[in-house]
C-alpha cells in the first residue's frame, strides 16, 4: 500500500535536497497548471503541466544537477523537457521501474532528468512535464517543500465556469503567506511566495514541508473531489465489492476452527491468525491495485497479498460468518492533518471490529503480531474506518501498556558476570523474538537477540538465550546477565545505578526551545528486578518515583529481602507518541530528569568497612 503515499510529493527537487534554515543554496520557482474540463455530467478530463526552475545561489549547490519525478498509473507523465539558460547541453532523461520498494509488481516509475556539464552560481536550469489524471480524486495534495528557498509556487486551475476551487490548509508551524485569485470565473490561482526553509528539528514529523493544501473542487453544489469521509469512503469502496462472496472452493476453509469458536471475537481471531500466518506478503500493485485490494478468493488462491489484500480477505471471511469487520486506512507516520481526507494520507490498511470504546483493531499484515495487539507503527495513528454507513476518522489507542521487556535477574555480588536472567518480551519485541526464532539460527540468532535486548540497557548485557516458555502474547528466554559494569565496586561499597534503561532519546531535549509538537515514532515500557545476593553488605531501603501517568513514569526501589540480599526494582514507561501544547514542558522535564538519573546510585556498604 506504500504507493498511496506517493502522490504527496509530485516533484522531488534534486537527488539530495538540502533542508536547512541558513542562507539558501538554490531558489526554486514552480508553476503547476491544472486543465480541467467537463467530460459528461459528472466526470472530468484533467491534466496538469508542471514547470520547475532552479537558480543556483551557492557554489556547493552546483553539483545538484539531477532531478527525479515519480509516476503512477493514475498520474502518468509525458512531454518531459529540460533546458538551461543557454550554457548546458540538453539534459538526459531516463526512466526506471521501481525495483526497490516493498511492491514486487507495480507501475511505479521514476524519471530522472540529469543536466550534464558545469553549472555556475547564478545560473538557472528548468524542466517541465505533463501529468494526466483519470479523475478528480487523484488530484494531488499541494505541498510546499521545506527546501532551501521557494521563491514562488503558483498553482493555476483552468476550469469550467460554475466550478469552484477551494483549499484546506495545513501548516506544521507558522502559517506562510499565500494569495488566491478567483476573479476569473474560469481560472483560480493560488500563489505562495518567498518561502524560506525551516530548521530541521529532531522528533518533529513535518520536517519535509512548510505547508500543504488539499484541493476541494465543487461543480455548482456538487462535490467533485471526494474530500469528506463519507465521499471518500463511497469513492474508495466503490472501486471494489464491499461484500464479496468467497469462492465455493473455500467453503470448508476454517470450518472446524470457526465451529469451535464460541463468540464473534473468537471467530475473528481464528480468521486473523489464519491470514497473518498463511498469506505471504507479496505486493502486486499493478494498475488500480496500487490502492484497491484484490478479490479475496484470488488472494486465497494465490496465498499472497499485501496489507489491503489481507485486510479485505479478513473482512470478507468475517462477513461470511455474519460478522461485520471493517477495513481501515491509516498512515504509519504522521501526515498533514485536514478536516477531510485524501488518498495520499494513507500507506497501510488494517481491520476494525465493533464500535466505540470496545472497538478492536487488528493488523493481519504483521505475521507475528497476535490478535488483540498491534505493531508499534499502527499505534496512535489516525485511521479512517471504511464503514460505508458510518465512516469515521479516529486515533488508534494503544492496546496495552504492559512492558515490552520484563526482566528478572538473580545474581551474586561476587560473580556479577554470571547473573541468571528470565527475559520476557512482549509487543514488538515479542514479535521480533518470534521472527528471530523462526528465521535465524545459531550465532546469528544469538547475536540478534543479545543486541536487541542489550540495546535498551546501560551497562548490562545479556547473552546465551534459550527459550524458557511462550504464551500467545509473550516469549520468555533464559539468558546470562552480565552486571559487572553495572554494579560499581569500590573498596567498601557497591554502587548501583537507579536508571538501568535507555528510556529516552537525549536528542528530544533539543526541542526545549521551540513550541511545536514532539513526535516519538517508538514507545517503550520496561521493567526489571534484580535479586542481588550480597553477603556482607548492608543498605537502606529507598525508592524513587517520577510521574504518575501510566504512559509516562519511572519508579525504582531497593529493599532488603527476607532471606537476605536486596531486590532492586525498576519500572519505566515512555509511551507517549504525540506531545503538544501544555504537555510539552512536563514531558521534557520528565526526559531531563530520567537522563540525569543515570548518576543516581543505590549504595551497598560492606559491613566490615
Amino acid at each position, binding site marked *: 500500500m506504500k504507493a498511496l503515499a506517493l502522490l504527496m510529493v509530485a516533484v522531488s527537487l534534486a537527488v*539530495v535536497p*538540502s*533542508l*536547512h*534554515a*541558513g*542562507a539558501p*543554496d538554490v531558489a526554486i520557482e514552480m508553476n503547476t497548471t491544472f486543465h480541467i474540463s467537463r467530460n459528461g455530467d459528472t466526470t472530468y478530463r484533467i491534466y496538469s503541466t508542471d514547470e520547475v526552475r532552479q537558480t543556483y545561489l551557492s557554489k*556547493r549547490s552546483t*553539483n545538484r*544537477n539531477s532531478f527525479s519525478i515519480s509516476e503512477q498509473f493514475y498520474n502518468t507523465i509525458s512531454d518531459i523537457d529540460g533546458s538551461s539558460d543557454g550554457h548546458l*547541453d540538453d539534459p*538526459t532523461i*531516463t*526512466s*526506471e*521501474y521501481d525495483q526497490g520498494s516493498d511492491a*514486487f*509488481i507495480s507501475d511505479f516509475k521514476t524519471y530522472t532528468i540529469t543536466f*550534464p*556539464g*558545469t553549472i555556475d552560481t547564478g545560473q538557472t536550469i528548468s524542466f517541465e512535464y505533463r501529468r494526466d489524471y483519470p479523475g478528480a480524486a487523484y488530484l494531488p495534495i499541494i505541498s510546499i517543500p521545506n527546501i532551501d528557498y521557494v521563491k514562488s509556487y503558483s498553482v493555476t486551475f483552468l476550469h469550467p465556469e460554475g466550478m469552484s476551487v477551494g483549499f484546506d490548509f495545513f501548516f506544521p508551524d507558522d502559517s506562510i503567506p499565500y494569495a488566491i485569485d478567483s476573479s476569473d470565473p474560469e481560472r483560480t490561482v493560488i500563489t505562495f511566495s518567498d518561502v524560506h526553509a525551516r*530548521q*530541521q528539528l529532531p522528533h518533529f514529523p513535518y520536517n519535509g514541508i512548510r505547508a500543504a493544501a488539499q484541493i476541494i473542487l465543487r461543480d455548482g453544489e456538487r462535490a467533485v473531489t471526494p474530500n469528506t469521509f463519507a465521499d471518500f469512503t463511497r469513492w474508495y469502496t466503490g472501486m471494489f465489492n464491499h461484500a464479496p462472496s468467497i469462492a465455493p472452493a473455500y467453503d470448508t476453509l476454517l470450518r472446524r476452527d470457526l465451529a469451535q469458536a464460541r463468540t464473534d471475537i473468537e471467530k475473528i481471531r481464528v480468521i486473523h491468525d489464519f491470514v497473518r500466518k498463511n498469506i*505471504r506478503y*507479496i505486493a*502486486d500493485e499493478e494498475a488500480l491495485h496500487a490502492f484497491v485490494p484484490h478479490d479475496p478468493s484470488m488472494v486465497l*488462491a*494465490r*496465498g*499472497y497479498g499485501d496489507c489491503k489484500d489481507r485486510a479485505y480477505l479478513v473482512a470478507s471471511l468475517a462477513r461470511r460468518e455474519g460478522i461485520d469487520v471493517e477495513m481501515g486506512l491509516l498512515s504509519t507516520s504522521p501526515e498533514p492533518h485536514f478536516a477531510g481526507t485524501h488518498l495520499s494520507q494513507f500507506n497501510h490498511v488494517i481491520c476494525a471490529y465493533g464500535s466505540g470504546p470496545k472497538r478492536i483493531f487488528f493488523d493481519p499484515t504483521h*505475521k507475528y503480531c497476535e490478535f488483540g495487539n498491534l505493531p508499534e507503527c499502527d499505534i496512535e495513528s489516525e485511521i479512517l474506518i471504511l464503514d460505508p454507513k458510518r465512516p469515521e476518522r479516529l486515533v488508534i489507542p494503544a492496546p496495552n501498556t504492559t512492558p515490552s521487556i520484563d526482566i528478572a535477574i538473580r545474581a551474586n555480588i561476587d560473580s556479577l558476570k554470571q547473573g541468571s536472567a528470565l527475559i520476557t518480551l512482549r509487543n514488538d519485541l515479542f514479535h521480533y523474538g518470534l521472527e528471530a526464532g523462526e*528465521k535465524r*539460527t*545459531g*550465532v*546469528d540468532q544469538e*547475536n540478534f537477540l*543479545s*543486541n536487541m535486548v*542489550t540495546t535498551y540497557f*546501560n*551497562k548490562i*548485557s545479556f547473552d546465551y538465550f534459550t527459550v524458557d516458555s511462550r504464551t500467545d502474547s509473550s516469549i520468555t528466554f533464559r539468558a546470562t546477565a552480565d552486571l559487572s*559494569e553495572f554494579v*560499581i565496586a*569500590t573498596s567498601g561499597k557497591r*554502587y548501583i*545505578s537507579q536508571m538501568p534503561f*535507555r528510556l529516552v532519546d*537525549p536528542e528530544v*531535549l533539543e526541542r526545549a526551545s521551540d513550541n511545536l509538537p514532539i513526535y516519538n515514532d517508538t514507545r517503550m515500557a520496561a521493567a526489571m528486578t534484580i535479586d542481588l545476593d550480597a553477603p556482607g553488605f548492608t543498605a537502606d531501603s529507598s525508592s524513587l518515583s517520577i510521574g504518575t501517568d501510566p504512559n509516562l513514569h519511572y519508579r525504582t526501589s531497593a529493599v532488603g529481602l527476607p532471606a537476605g540480599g536486596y531486590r532492586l526494582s525498576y519500572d519505566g514507561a515512555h509511551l507517549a507518541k504525540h506531545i503538544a501544547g501544555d504537555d510539552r514542558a512536563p514531558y521534557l522535564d520528565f526526559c*531531563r530528569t530520567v*537522563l*540525569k*538519573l*543515570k*548518576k543516581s*546510585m543505590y*549504595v551497598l556498604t560492606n559491613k566490615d568497612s
Partner: protein
Amino acid sequence: MKNQLLLLPLLAALLLASCGMPQRMIRFTPALADSLKASRVNLADYEKRYARYEGVFLLDEQSVEHVLQPNMKYWRCYRMRTLRYIVLDPDAEWLTTFNLGIDEGDQLISATIDILNPDGSMHNYGTEDLKKTVSSEGETRYKLAYPDIRKGTIVQESYEMAIVPYSAAALRPSIDVQYSVPVEHMIVQLALPQKWTTDVKETAPDQLPSLRSQSYQEDRKSIYRYEATDVPAINDEPYAPYFREVANYIECQTGESSIRTTSWESLTDDFSEIREDNTWQYATVRDVVDTIVRGASSDRAKLDAIIRFVQRNITPVRTYNGDDTRDVLESGSGNIMRICALTRGMLQDAHIRARLVLAHSARDGYFDSNFVSVGQLNVPLVEAIIGDTSYIAFPYWKNYPVNVIPDHLQGQPGLVIADEQPPGDLVTLPIGDSVSNTLDDSYNLAIDDDGNISVEETRSLHGTNAFWERERLAAMDDEETKKEIRDLLTYSDGDIKVKDFEITNKTDYEQPLVIRIRYSIDNLVTVTPDEVIFQTGGLFSPSTGRKQKLDTTERQNPIRIYENEELIKKITVSYPASWTLTTPLENAEQSNEFGSISGTYTSGAGTLTVEHHRLLRRMSAPKEKSNELLAVTGRKSRLNIPTLVFKVTR
C-alpha cells in the same frame, strides 16, 4: 518497380526457410509435470539438514550455446537455464517469485514455471503470464509472483534466451556454480563451434573448474560440461573474502581464433580508439588545463587540481565509447573510460606522466594472468607518476581523494591501456598503508568538584574515513553541520551541551580531517561524600561498533582482512586535587599475527592519561585462526574501563 519490391520479402523468407533452423545440440526441454513429480522430496529431512537456509537448489542446469547459421557467416547465442528448488521459507520473496532482467538486445524466447506443492497439486505458467517492463536503458524485466507456495513446495523455472552475439554475455560467459543456498546437483554446458577456441579462467592458482569436453564431428561442435553434486552454500560471515574469492564459478571466453586476443599487449588494441585519441592536445583542452593548474606550485598540486576539476565537472554516463576526450570535456559527460582518458590527457597537458589502467577487482575473484580477457578488468583508473612515486586516481568518483585505493583494488593487477610508452604492461596497484585508515582521537576531560565534565574531543580522520566525512560535510549548511557534530560525539546518552566546534582541513585533501568539539556532560559523575564515581560512557572503550559474536567453531570461510585498520585513542582526564584515583589500572598489551591491542595508563596528581591503540593487519588466514582474531577484535576487551572511582579527601 513496386512489384519487384514486394517480391523481396518473399525471397528473403524462402532463403531463410532453405537455410533451415540453426543446428542446436542442447535443446531447451521445458519440464514435464511427471518429471517434476518424480523429484518430490522428504521435507522433514531437508528441514533438518538445511535449517539455516531459505531453500535448497535441487538442480541447476545452465547452458550457453553458440550456433553458426548454415551457409551463412553469422551466428547466434542461446542461454538456457532450468532451476529446480525446494522452498523452506515461504516468506523468502526471492524464492517465491520469478524476477528476470535481461539486457538491451537480448530476447526471452520462452519461459516455463512449474510448481509442485507437498500435497501433489501443481501450477504451471508460461511466458504469457509474466509481467514485462522495459526501462529507458533497454533493460527488460519479467516478473511473476508464485501462488500457493508452502514450506516444501518445489519450484522449477526454465527459460531460454537469445543473447546479442557480440555481447560480453555471449563471448565471455561467467556462471556462478555456488550460491548462498546449497545446490544438490549443478550442471553447466557450453556448446561451441568446434573451430572456436575456448579459454577457461583459473578460479585460484592452478585450479580450473573441472570442465570435460567432448567433440561432435558431425555437428562440428564441442561441448564443455561441468557437473557437481552437494555443493555447499557460501555463508555470509564477518572478516570473510569476497564471494567470488571463495565460491566456485566458471568464467571463460570463446570465439573464432582469428578474433581472439592472445596477449595482454594485443588486448589493448580493443581500446585503440581511446589509446590513439589525441584530442587532449587541442588548444581548447590545453587552455582549460592551463586555467586549472594556474597557481599550483607543484606537480602534486596540479594533479589534485585536475582530478578535482574532472570529478566535479564531468558527469559519468552509460554511453558507448564514441566521444573523444575533447567532446567529453565540452559536453561535461562521458563514460568512465573516456573520463579516465580525458584525465590522463589533461595530466599530460600539465606535463605529468599519466597512464590509463584497467584494474582487476578482488570482487571478481582470482586474477588469472594466463586468461587474457577484458572480463577480468573492470575498473578504469588513472595512474600519475611524479618522480618515483605513482598516484592512483578515480576521476569519475566525485571528490574521491588521490591515492586512496578501495580495498578490493589494493594489490590487484591492472593493464596499462594508454601510456607514453607502448601499453600492455600488467602493473600491480599499491597496497594502502595503515595511515590511510587510521582513526586518531584524543579527549581532554576536565571534571569539576560537582561532577560536571567539560570535554574537548578531537577526531582526526584519514583516508577513506576522511573522504566520506568530507563528502558529508560538503553537502551540509551550518545547521546540518551542527547536527552532524552532535552525531559524531562519542558520548550521546545524556543532556549534552555542545559549546563550540572547529573543523580543520575541510577541503585540504592532503591533510587529515580534524574535528574538534567542546561539550559538557552532566550525568556521568556521581559525587558522594567520600567517593566519586565516573561512568566513562564509552569514552574509554578501545573499539566502537555493534557487539558481534564470531562463530569460531562452525566458521566456513577463511579469514580475510582487506585493509590495515588502526585506532589510536589518547585521553587526558583532569580532576580536582582533592580526589585520588583508586581504580587499579594496569598497562596491558596483547598481540598476535592479526594485530595488537594495548592500553597504557599514567596517573599523577589530579590527572590521568590513557592511551589505547588497536591495530588490525591486512592479511589472509585459515578459518582455524578465528579465536586469535577474536583476541584482538572481540566483543569485550579487557581494555574497556566502564568506571573510574576516586577517593575524596576533605
